[in-house]
C-alpha cells in the first residue's frame, strides 16, 4: 500500500507530533518499551556478529600476507585458532540474538494482540455492525505478524546494516579508493532498484490477496449454500463463476512471481558484475605493486560482506513500510473510541425493576432518519410487556436499548427511575438479561455457554434454567453439560439452540428479562411447555418480549403495538391487553389473528399492506 503522505515528508519521525512515513510505527514504541533492554541486546549482538564477520576475511588476508609468505607454522596455528574462536563466537552471538528475539518480539506481538482483543470487546455494537470480522482477523494475524517481523528483523538490521555499509565502505575506500569507490557507487543503484521493485511486489501481493478473498467468498458461498445449489442443480453455474476468479487469481499470481524473479535477477547480477570489476582492477593494482595479494583477497572477502546489507536494504525498507501500514490498520481500530462508556458519576441502581421509555428516539449511527421516535412506555416491576409490529419496524432495536447495546438518540431509558446511561455497565447488564432472535452459541461447553454471564451459578440454578427453557436435552448429549457446542462442536437444531439461549437468559433470575421472539423455532408441543415454565419466571420478573405469534404474546400482561409515526419512523400506536386489542385494533388483529377463513384473506391483505407501509 503506498503511503498516503507526500514523498517529500521527513522519514524521521519527530516525537511530539509524528507526521513522517513511519509515524504509526513510532506510535508502537510503547509496546516496545517493556522489551527495550532485550531490543538493545539484540541490536548489540547483531552488530557484534557483523564485526566478527568482518574479522574473519581480515584474518584470511593476514594468513596469506603473513605465515604463508614467511612459512611460520606456529603463527599459522595461532591464526587458525583465532579463526575458530571468531567463528564460534559468531555462533554464540547468533544464538543469543535468536533466543532474545523469541522472548521479546513475541511478547510485543502478544501485548498488541491482547490489547486489540480487549479494545474490540469494548467497542459498541454499532462499530461491529460496520466491520466484518474477517477484516479484524487479518489485523489480528497478518498485520501483527508484520509488526513482529519489523521489531525482530527490519528495525535491527536497518541499523546494523547501515553501520556495516558505512564502516565497511569506509574501510574499503581506505584500503583502495578506486576499488572501494566502485563498490559503494554500484551499491546505491541496487538498493534503489530493489526498493522500487519491492514496492511493485507489495502491490502485486495485495492484488493477489484481494483476489484470494474473492475466491474465498465464492468458496464460502458454495459451501454454505450447497443445499440451494443442489436443490436447483446449479453446479455448473457456480463452477464457471468460481473458475473465472481462480483463473484471474492465477494471472495475478504469475505477475507477482515475475516481479519477484526480476528482483532476484538484479540481486544476482549486480554483485557478480562488481566482482568482475574488482578482479580486473584489483589484479591490475596488485600487479603494479599498489596492492598486496593478501589485501586484495581481504578486499574481495570484505566486499562479500557488503552484498547482504546492500541487497537487503531494499527489502528492509519495504518491510518497514509494510509494518507501518499494518500499524496504521491496527491503530485505526485502537483509536476508535467506544461510544457506549461508563458514566462519569455512577448512580447506584436499586429497585424492583421498573422500566420506562421516556420519549425515546433512535437512529442508527451514520443515518439521520429516525427509526424509532417518541416512544413512551412504562413497565411496572413484575409486569411483562409484549412488543408487536410489522417486520423491520424496529422491535429488536427497541430491546437493544435496554442493556445499552445502543444508546438512544433522543429521550431516556430509565431503570427504576435512573437513566441507564448513569448506571455502571456491569450493574445494568447484570440486572438485565437478554435472549436474542438469533441464538448465539460459542464454541465452548454447554455449561460455559449457559453460565455466560454468571460463571458462579450453582447446579440448582443451572437445572432450573434448563427446566424453564425445556433444554434438558443437553443431559442426553454425549458428554452432557461438558459437550462442546457451537461452530466447533456438536451442531444443534435451531430449536435446541434457541432453548439454550433462553436458559442462559433466565439463569440466576435477573431483575429484567428482554426476550426477542424467544419461541420462534420451537414446535407446538415444546412451545407449550416452555410457555408454561416461562410464565412462572415472568410473573416475578419485569419482562420485555418481542412477539410475532399469539402464543408468545400471551406471556405478557400487556401489549404495545408499534407502527408508523405520522412524521416518519416507528412509534407506539396502541397499548392494551391482547384481548382488548384484538377487539378494538384492526392493525393488531391483522398482525396476530391467524384466521382460518381464507375468504377473509382478501380484505385482510389490504390491511396488511397498509400496516406494512
Amino acid at each position, binding site marked *: 500500500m503506498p503511503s498516503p503522505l507526500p514523498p517529500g515528508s521527513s522519514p524521521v519521525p519527530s516525537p511530539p507530533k509524528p507526521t513522517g512515513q513511519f509515524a504509526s510505527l513510532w506510535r508502537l514504541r510503547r509496546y516496545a518499551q517493556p522489551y527495550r533492554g532485550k531490543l538493545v541486546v539484540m541490536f548489540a549482538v547483531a552488530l557484534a556478529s557483523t564485526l566478527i564477520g568482518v574479522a574473519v576475511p581480515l584474518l584470511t588476508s593476514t594468513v596469506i600476507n603473513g605465515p604463508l609468505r614467511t612459512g611460520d607454522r606456529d603463527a599459522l596455528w595461532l591464526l587458525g585458532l583465532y579463526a575458530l574462536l571468531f567463528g564460534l563466537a559468531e555462533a554464540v552471538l547468533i*544464538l543469543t540474538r*535468536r533466543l532474545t528475539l523469541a522472548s521479546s518480539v513475541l511478547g510485543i506481538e502478544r501485548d498488541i494482540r*491482547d490489547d486489540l482483543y480487549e479494545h474490540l470487546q469494548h467497542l459498541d455494537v454499532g462499530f461491529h455492525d460496520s466491520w466484518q470480522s474477517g477484516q479484524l482477523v487479518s489485523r489480528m494475524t497478518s498485520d501483527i505478524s508484520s509488526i513482529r517481523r519489523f521489531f525482530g528483523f527490519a528495525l535491527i538490521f536497518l541499523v546494523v546494516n547501515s553501520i556495516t555499509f558505512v564502516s565497511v565502505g569506509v574501510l574499503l575506500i581506505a584500503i583502495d579508493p578506486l576499488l572501494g569507490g566502485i563498490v559503494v557507487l554500484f551499491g546505491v543503484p541496487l538498493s534503489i532498484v530493489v526498493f522500487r521493485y519491492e514496492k511493485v511486489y507489495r502491490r502485486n501481493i495485495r492484488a493477489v490477496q484481494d483476489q484470494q478473498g474473492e475466491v474465498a467468498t465464492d468458496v464460502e458461498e458454495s459451501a454454505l449454500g450447497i443445499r440451494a445449489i443442489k436443490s436447483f442443480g446449479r453446479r455448473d453455474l457456480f463452477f464457471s463463476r468460481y473458475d473465472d476468479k481462480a483463473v484471474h487469481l492465477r494471472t495475478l499470481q504469475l505477475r507477482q512471481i515475475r516481479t519477484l524473479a526480476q528482483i532476484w535477477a538484479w540481486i544476482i547480477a549486480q554483485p557478480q*558484475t562488481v*566482482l568482475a570489476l574488482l578482479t580486473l582492477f584489483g589484479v591490475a593494482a596488485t600487479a603494479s605493486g599498489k596492492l598486496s595479494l593478501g589485501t586484495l583477497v581481504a578486499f574481495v572477502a570484505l566486499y562479500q560482506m557488503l552484498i547482504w546489507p546492500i541487497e537487503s536494504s531494499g527489502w528492509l525498507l519495504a518491510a518497514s513500510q509494510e509494518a507501518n501500514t499494518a500499524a496504521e490498520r491496527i491503530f485505526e481500530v485502537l483509536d476508535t473510541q467506544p461510544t457506549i462508556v461508563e458514566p462519569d458519576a455512577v448512580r447506584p441502581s436499586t429497585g424492583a425493576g421498573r422500566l420506562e421509555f421516556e420519549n425515546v428516539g433512535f437512529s442508527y449511527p451514520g443515518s439521520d432518519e429516525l427509526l424509532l421516535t417518541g416512544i413512551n412506555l412504562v413497565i411496572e416491576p413484575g409486569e411483562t410487556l409484549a412488543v408487536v409490529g410489522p417486520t423491520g419496524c424496529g422491535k429488536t432495536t427497541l430491546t437493544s436499548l435496554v442493556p445499552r447495546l445502543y444508546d438512544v438518540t433522543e429521550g431516556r431509558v430509565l431503570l427504576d427511575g435512573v437513566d441507564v446511561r448513569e448506571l455502571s455497565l456491569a450493574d445494568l447488564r447484570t440486572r438485565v438479561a437478554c435472549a436474542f432472535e438469533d441464538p448465539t452459541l460459542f464454541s465452548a461447553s454447554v455449561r460455559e455457554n449457559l453460565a*455466560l454471564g454468571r460463571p458462579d451459578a450453582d447446579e440448582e440454578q443451572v437445572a432450573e434454567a434448563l427446566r424453564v427453557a425445556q433444554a434438558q436435552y443437553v443431559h442426553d448429549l454425549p458428554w452432557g453439560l461438558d*459437550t462442546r457446542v457451537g461452530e466447533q462442536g456438536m451442531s444443534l437444531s435451531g430449536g435446541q439452540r434457541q432453548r439454550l439461549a433462553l436458559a442462559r437468559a433466565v439463569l440466576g433470575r435477573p431483575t429484567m428479562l428482554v426476550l426477542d421472539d424467544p419461541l420462534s423455532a420451537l414446535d407446538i408441543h415444546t412451545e407449550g411447555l416452555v410457555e408454561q415454565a416461562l410464565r412462572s419466571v415472568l410473573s416475578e420478573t419485569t419482562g420485555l418480549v418481542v412477539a*410475532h405469534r399469539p402464543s408468545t404474546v400471551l406471556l405478557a400482561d400487556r401489549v404495545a403495538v408499534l407502527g408508523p409515526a405520522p412524521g416518519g419512523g416507528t412509534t407506539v400506536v396502541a397499548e392494551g391487553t391482547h384481548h382488548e386489542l384484538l377487539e378494538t385494533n384492526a392493525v393488531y388483529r391483522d398482525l396476530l389473528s391467524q384466521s382460518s377463513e381464507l375468504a377473509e384473506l382478501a380484505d385482510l391483505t389490504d390491511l396488511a399492506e397498509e400496516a406494512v407501509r
Partner: protein
Amino acid sequence: MTTAVDTENPDAAEQAAASPVPAAEDWRGVAAEDTEEVSAKGGVFLRARSRRLLGALIRPHRRAMLFATVLIIVVTGFEMCAPYLVSVGIDDGMPAVKHGDWTPIVLAAAGIGGSALLGSLLRLKFLTLAGRIGQDMLLALRRRVFQQFQALPIAFHEKYTSGRVISRLTNDLDALNDLINSSLDGLISALLNIVVIGTLLAVIDPMLSVIVLVCLPALGGLLVWYTKGSRVAYRQQRAAVAACIVQFVETLNGIRAVQSFRREVRNRDIFSKLNQDYVDANAKSMMMFGWFIPGIVAVGAIATASVLVFGGFQVMDGSLQVGLLTAYILYMRKFFDPMQDLAVFYTSYQSAAAALEKLSGVLEERPEVPEPTEPRELPEPVRGQITFEGVRFSYPKRDKDEAERVILPGLELEIPAGQTVALVGATGAGKSTLARLMCRFYDPIQGAVRLDGIDLRELRDRDLRKGVIMVTQENFLFSGSVADNIRFGRPEATDEQVEQAARAIGAHEFIARLPEGYQTDVKKRGGRLSAGQRQLVAFARAFLADPAVLILDEATSSLDVPSERLVQRALRTILADRTALIIAHRLSTVEIADRVLVMESGRIVEDGEPEALISAEVATGDAPSRFAALHEAWRESLV
C-alpha cells in the same frame, strides 16, 4: 501442550475424548471431532493417495519440468563459477599482467561478468517457468477439489461441515501455494548448491575435502534433530493459532451476547491464555531455529579454521596455490549457507504435506449418491407423480459403534401428480427425511423413490433438479442483487419474469422499498434482509424455477403472520397444477392441502383429507385422531 501429546498418539487422544468425565474447569468442552484431522499430519513421506494426486498433477507438465530442471542446473553452474574465476584471475592473470599480458585477467573478468548476466537472465526464465508450472498445477487442483465438493452429496456435507470445506479450498490450497511460490525454488537451489559445491570442493582439493566430509554427519544430525522437533512445534503452532482465531471471531460475531452478558472479563482471560499458548508455541519453534542456525555456523567455523590451517600448510609446501585456497574458503561458505534454506523449506513443506493429505482424502471420497451410468429420460413435461416403494432409510452412522438409527422402516406412499400434501408430526418423526429422499439428497437403503415411475437413481442430477425443488427454512442468499438471487431459480429469466415471480408470492412490495430495489446487494449494508424477507426471496426463486414437484420444509416458519397469509394465498394459485409436499409445525399451511399425512416414528399413521381427519372423532366415536388433536393444540395457540 496437551494437544501435542494427543496428536502424537491418536489412540490416546480418542480415549481421552471418550472418557466420560472430562475436566470440569475446561470451558472449551469435549467434542468428537477434536481428533479427526490429526491423522493428516505433515511428516516427511506422503501417503499413497497423496502421491497419486501429485503424480496426476505433475503429468501434464513433465516436459516443462524437465526443462526447468536443466535450467536451474545451468543457472547454478553459472552462479558458481565466480569464486573459481576470481582464483584464476589471481593465480594466472596476475603473473601475466606483470609481463604485460592482459588477456587472461580480462577473460576472467569478462567470464565473471558474463556468467553473472547469463545466470541472472536464466534464473529469471527459470523462476517464471517454475512459477507457471506451479500455478497451473494449483489451478488444476483448485478446479478438481471445487468440482468434487460440488459433486459430493448433502450427506457428505452434513458430516464434513462447511467450515472444513472452506478451509480445504482456502487455507490448504494457500499452504501449497506458499510452498510452490517461495520455498520450492529455495530447496532446489539449496540441494544443487550442496551437491555441486561439494563436488567442486572435492575436485579443487581432495585432501581438504576430507575435513568437510567429517563435518557432514554433524550437519546431518543437526538437520534430523531440527526436522523432528519442528514437526511437533509446528503442530502445536497450528492448533494454537486456530484456537486464537476461533475465540477472536466468535467474540466479534457474538458481540451482542458478549456485552449484554458481561462476558468481557472472562473472555479476556481466556483469550490471553490462548494468546500465550500461541506465543509459547511460536517461541518453541523459534528456539528450535535459534539453536539450529548457530549449530550450522559453529560446524562451519570449525571446518573453515581447519581448512585455513591445513590449506596453509599445503600452500607452504607448495602443493596448493594461494588463489585456490581463497576460492576454497569462499566456496565453503556457500556450502554451509543452504543448510538454513533446507530448514526453512521443511517448515513450509510440513503444512503443504498436511494440506495435500487432506485434499487427496477429499478427492478420493466417492459420492454416496452417484450419477447413473445409464440414465433414463424423464417424459416431457414432467407430470410430478411421486412413489415411495418399500423405502427403508437410516442415516449413516457417525462412528462404527453407533447403533443403526432407522428413520423410515418401510414406507409406502403414492402421491398423484398435482396433489398438495401436508406432512405433519412431531419433531423426529421422519418428515424432513422423507422430503430429502424425494429430492435425492440421500438414497434409500431398500426400496425406491420414483418420479413419474422412474427410480430417482436412474435420473441425471440435472434432469431431477428441473423437476423437483425444495425450499427449506435455511434460506441462503448468495452475494449479488436481490434479482440475481431470485434468478438463481432460472438463470435465463428476464427482469420482468423475476419481478413477476416476486409479485406472485408477495415479495415485490418489500423489494421495491429497498434502497436500490431489485438491484440492492444483499450482502451490503442496507441490503441485509430479515429472516422472513430471505424466505420470501427463496420462495420467489423456487416459483421462478417452475418445477413440477415443490417441497416446502418448514418454509414459512420465519414469516410474520401477514406475510405468511400472503404466501398462503399465493401458494393456492402456485400449487394448483403442481405436486407439492408441505411440512409445517404451524398448521395454517395445512388448510390449502388436498391431503394430510400424519407421521410417527417413520410411519404414516393417518392419511386423508384435512376436513375428514379433523372430524374423524365424530365418525368413529373414539379418541380424536392425532391430526385432530394437533389441530386443536394449534388453534389454541392462536387464541
